[in-house]
């Protein structure tokens, strides 16, 4: 536990001593703030119009009109930014040779890997907590339903976990940060859109593809549904990539 805490603290310190964390968090908040602003204004406009001509006022609510599109946009920003946060985790240490030294300390691989994973997750949570401001703004001007907002955040949290574990895995494969980043981006994007092919393939394949899709599982969270199936999906994805990371570290040793 002490060893884990030391690694976790060092990683977190690195994020905040270098500008990495600040830059990532601010860019994330600027972009998501801009999205919130434009979506909210658009929702405003639609509301005004519906008051005037009364045609489609029936389904208009803050969750469907603001929160869901906003969360969808945030997941895209995450897709772009999280690989930048995770790409250095192991690749940099491998390049500098500090990882070799770390592995000669009496630390099990899993302690090092989970310490790094949780440090990136912490930065991500700090990043995400900045967006709590948007629902609060909504609450000032209106009365949005709280539970769907919370389930959206649970979804984002779980999706972030799986992006970070993918990033960690690719970072363990190479000593080149850029390669790790690009590969993470590619794979997470693929997992995000894998469901798009579902309508064009046979029934069974279609179900399988849909089950693999990050987006489809996120959908129920954004509707306010917390389904164990979705939670299991994200957790399994995360654990699977952490497991692969451990395997990859072990195989690097034997291959060397």
């Amino acid at each position, binding site marked *: 536990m*002490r*060893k884990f*805490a*030391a*690694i976790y*603290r*060092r990683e977190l*310190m*690195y994020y905040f*001593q*270098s500008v990495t964390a600040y830059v990532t968090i601010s860019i994330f908040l600027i972009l998501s703030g801009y999205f919130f602003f434009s979506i909210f204004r658009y929702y405003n406009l639609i509301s005004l119009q519906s008051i005037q001509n009364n045609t489609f006022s029936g389904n208009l609510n803050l969750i469907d009109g603001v929160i869901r599109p906003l969360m969808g946009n945030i997941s895209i920003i995450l897709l772009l930014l999280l690989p930048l946060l995770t790409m250095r985790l192991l690749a940099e240490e491998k390049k*500098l*040779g*500090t990882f*070799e*030294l*770390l*592995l*000669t*300390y*009496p*630390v*099990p691989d899993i302690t090092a890997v989970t310490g790094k994973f949780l440090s990136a997750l912490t930065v991500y949570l700090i990043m995400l907590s900045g967006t709590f401001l948007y629902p609060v703004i909504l609450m000032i001007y209106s009365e949005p339903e709280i539970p769907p907002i919370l389930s959206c955040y649970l979804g984002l949290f779980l999706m972030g976990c799986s992006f970070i574990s993918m990033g960690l895995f690719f970072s363990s494969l190479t000593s080149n940060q850029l390669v790790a980043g690009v590969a993470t981006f590619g794979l997470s994007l693929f997992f995000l859109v894998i469901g798009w092919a579902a309508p064009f393939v046979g029934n069974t394949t279609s179900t399988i593809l849909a089950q693999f899709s990050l987006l489809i599982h996120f959908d129920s969270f954004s509707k306010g549904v917390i389904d164990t199936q979705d939670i299991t999906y994200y957790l399994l994805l995360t654990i699977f990539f952490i497991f692969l990371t451990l395997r990859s570290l072990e195989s690097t*040793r*034997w291959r*060397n």
Partner: protein
Amino acid sequence: MIQIKNLSKYYGTTRAVYDLSLEVEKGEVLGFLGPNGAGKTTTMKMLTCYLPPSSGTATIFGFDILNDPMEVRKRIGYLPEKTPLYQEMRVDEYLRFVASVKGMAPPRVKPALGRVIEQCGLEEVHRRSIGKLSKGYQQRVGIAQAIISDPELLILDEPTLGLDPRQIIDIRTMIKNLGRDRTVILSSHILPEVSQVCDRIIIMNQGELVAVDTPDKLRARLKQVSVTRITLRRSDRSRGAREALLEMEGVLMVKEKSSPAQADTLVLQVESRPDRDLREGIAGKLVKEGFPLLEIFHEELSLEDIFIKLVTEEVNR
């Protein structure tokens, strides 16, 4: 204390270390000497449980490097060749981090930190960030991280590489002091360095152990002998060749080195004083006395050759 048993390591088909067996006593300062690529670093990486051996094993303080790597790692301090440190951290921060990662209890960390800062002469720089220190100080920080948990075995890979002469002397003195109460294994490709610091030297070349001895004995052995290898056809006429060679002036010893696989040849190894080349005299004598001489050559890749290679490297630095 440390037993290395038939340790081998292959990188793909390249042989890095081959069938290395060795015992190291407690409290000994042992030096691995050899040209670049001799297998010193690979051996050290295996002893620190970073690389698994291809075959063979080693036990360190009774713990096997394959079966009990965590127990082994608890008892060693290691400094790799390129001194990899977290450049952005402060010296004291870094050493505290290393102490916790090595599992030291918080109350033990502070006194240990004070001790290594003093032992490694880091008083003036311990609040500066590592990336801004000179190479010499970085090396000291590297040694400090290795000894912070007060390990029983210290493994240092080329601890003086890339330092200026003044820093080299400092680091050597430090290693000598550290070696008083613990076992130290260090590597170098500079002979005078190991002979100054170490109790025993291991010469490696192309992954194989060439010689193990104390610096003095090794030096004596290296300086006194020049080896000429002679092959004769084994017959009635070859009898008495050994005696004939022993009579020659300058010959110290003649050993028979025939291999059972080649029953028809007689191989003799003539050791003579290094300052005299006896090849001409030996050939002349053997031919004159009618011995069936097949080959004569000055032994290549002997200890001496490796030694000379190493010494030349030192001279050229």
